[in-house]
């Protein structure tokens, strides 16, 4: 079967879904965001050579940009591992057919490159190339373009392999990453020296390739071929559907969870969600995310922060040192897992809806589960913050209340707009679940803390306001629950229809 037949078929699969309008809207929203970011990067690219000549007269802009390629690749891969939920297409229906695996792998590898994650940074690379070419350096400009594109290809292919590796060992990965961050924070390693070395390596590797030197160009080429080859081998292995692989934890039921489940129907639903989280590779990823942020936050107890530092910090700096770590340390669990609620049940959603479990108990169970996770994230670093009497405790508590009271119910509400089932077993390695409805419900809530920080100049109003909002919302959870139940009943048929069409 020619490659283009498969590609055309995937296009048909994309448009023949029951909620094409919503998917189109999601694409448009994502497209606008990409255009916005891409446009900014194009402007930066246009001004890049002038900025370089001003900062370092005589320096070659292409070589300066080349020095940043390797650090960019590492940082971008780390971001995509955390943020990106999947790439490519579902090719399992083709596996039993007389289609060459090499063809399927080629389709997946090709499709994964067509992503806004690549298009946006490519805008910068392309602009810098064009500027350099217009200045008369056509050869180096083309070589820089190839190097930039190669870096994006390598990151695209490395990301899912890294994510799969981390989800298989979430605790180990979280602790390892925490040790890395802690080492940097405690100056056990020379971060500045390390970054400088990285820039030098990047300059030699990619700068040499831009200059046309054989050894660096060959090394870069070999590296790229290695990553592509590794990705292809990994894909081929993942396409072997082995139903007999047993999880190490198969069958180990927890008496503690059983005890909790017997507390009532809502607790039973919450325990079911906990078992789903613990027994599936895709959802164990949430553990890694939550643990990582929580452990990083624990590191804040080591850094001496005074209340005066918080008072004196300008709004942007205040946001960086408080809002992001505060919001995501206690909120990452609810945000990351909450966005895929119901979708994770996709394969068995009829099982949930046909049983005598009321919508109210279902939603109460989801709320209990996410609140429990949020509380877990709050409690883990609490002893460290209390013992060190670190003022960051104020931020930590503020955003715990906000996440518990506002973000958790909002994530549950947004999840009722999910229309795509996600397979959670370890055989699945490619899935995305962008929902315009969910984003519309949840995105404004991440803006609210910004408003408090920018609108007031006193800490007690900035953080007190956010905390008070969270506490009030927490106290109003019974009202939230009524609304969530109505929202679930309103959306349940559409959810079922979308999940059936997803075919997972």
């Amino acid at each position: 079967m020619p490659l283009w037949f498969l590609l055309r078929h995937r296009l048909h699969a994309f448009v023949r879904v029951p909620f094409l309008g919503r998917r189109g809207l999601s694409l448009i929203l994502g497209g606008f965001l990409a255009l916005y970011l891409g446009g900014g990067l194009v402007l930066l690219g246009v001004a890049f050579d002038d900025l370089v000549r001003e900062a370092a007269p005589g320096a070659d802009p292409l070589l300066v940009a080349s020095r940043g390629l390797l650090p960019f690749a590492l940082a971008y891969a780390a971001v995509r591992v955390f943020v990106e939920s999947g790439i490519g297409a579902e090719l399992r229906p083709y596996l039993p057919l007389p289609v060459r695996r090499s063809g399927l792998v080629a389709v997946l590898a090709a499709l994964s490159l067509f992503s806004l994650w690549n298009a946006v940074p490519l805008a910068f690379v392309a602009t810098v190339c064009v500027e350099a070419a217009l200045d008369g350096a056509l050869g180096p400009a083309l070589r820089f373009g190839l190097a930039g594109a190669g870096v994006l290809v390598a990151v695209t292919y490395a990301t899912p392999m890294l994510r799969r590796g981390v989800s298989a060992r979430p605790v180990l990965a979280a602790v390892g990453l925490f040790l890395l961050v802690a080492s940097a924070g405690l100056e056990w390693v020379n971060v500045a020296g390390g970054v400088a070395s990285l820039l030098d390596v990047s300059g030699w590797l990619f700068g040499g390739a831009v200059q046309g030197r054989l050894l660096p160009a060959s090394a870069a080429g070999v590296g790229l071929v290695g990553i592509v080859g590794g990705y292809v081998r990994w894909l081929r292995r993942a396409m072997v559907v082995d139903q007999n692989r047993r999880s190490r934890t198969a069958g180990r039921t927890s008496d503690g969870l059983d005890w909790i489940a017997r507390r009532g129907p809502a607790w039973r639903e919450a325990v079911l969600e906990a078992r789903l989280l613990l027994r599936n590779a895709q959802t164990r990823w949430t553990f890694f995310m939550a643990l990582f942020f929580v452990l990083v936050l624990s590191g804040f107890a080591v850094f001496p922060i005074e209340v005066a530092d918080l008072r004196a910090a300008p709004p942007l700096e205040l946001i960086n040192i408080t809002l992001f770590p505060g919001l995501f340390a206690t909120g990452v669990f609810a945000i990351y897992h909450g966005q895929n609620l119901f979708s994770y049940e996709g394969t068995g959603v009829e099982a949930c809806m046909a049983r005598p479990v009321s919508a109210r108990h279902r939603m109460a169970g989801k709320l209990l589960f996410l609140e429990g996770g949020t509380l877990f994230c709050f409690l883990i670093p609490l002893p460290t913050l209390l013992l060190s009497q670190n003022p960051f405790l104020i931020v930590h508590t503020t955003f715990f209340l906000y996440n518990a009271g506002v973000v958790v119910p909002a994530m549950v509400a947004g999840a009722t707009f999910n229309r795509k089932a996600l397979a959670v077993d370890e055989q699945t390695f490619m899935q995305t679940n962008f929902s315009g409805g969910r984003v519309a419900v949840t995105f404004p809530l991440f803006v609210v803390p910004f408003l408090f920080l920018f609108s007031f100049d006193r800490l007690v109003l900035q953080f007190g306001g956010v905390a008070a909002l969270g506490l009030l919302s927490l106290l109003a959870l019974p009202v939230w629950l009524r609304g969530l139940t109505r929202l679930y009943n309103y959306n349940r048929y559409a959810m079922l229809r979308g999940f059936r069409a997803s075919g997972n």
Partner: protein
Amino acid sequence: MNLTTDTLTKRYDEFELSIPDLTVERGTALGLVGNNGAGKTTFLRLVLDLIRADAGQVRLDGDTVADAFDWKERTGSYLGPSFLIDFLTPDEYWHFVGQTYDLSEATVDERLAQFADFYVDEPIGETTKYIRDLSTGNKNKAGLVAALLPQPDLLVFDEPFASLDPRSQIQLKELLQARRGDTTMLVSSHDLGHVTDVSDRIAILEGGEIVRDEPTDPDTLEDLTTYFAEAIRPKETEPADAEA
């Protein structure tokens, strides 16, 4: 449980399921047969309120299924693997289902013991495997046991005999026959012999409509076989056409 439909209609593009007036009395077993795409599963999903009707309703003991909840506590159903929670072991799944029906652990264990013969050579009740790692047949068994566990007033099964080994098919038939008279049953199956044996009535669905609805008798299997066989024979030509 008494089941009635009232101008029940569901439309999908070029297909329309229309069951204007169907009544299944309490304790009656209705067998649903029909070709692929006739609307059997769609009808069962409408009964279980898994899809929304475009017109009309399904009522159980007078309550519209889309508006009421209590009927779920007296209904057991299994339409396929989508009814399973595949990250639980079979035993966990059955106990979980029992809890949703407010059955005590002791009651669940006592009732599960009645099904021990159903899977005697494949002890899925004792396995530590998750449901997703079971064979298709054993998955179906786990779902069927879960549906029968609460001893419901209404049983809804879609292709219950599919993927079961011959002995298990016979055992399931016996289990369902034992419930005739006490439990209202809707059983959809392509196995004409089995569905005839377990049903008091047979309804044939074709193109979204019930074209025949008759009580079963000793000739029902032969009638059904003849009915479906005639669909694949070429139509006999009229004498006038033959002369032309």
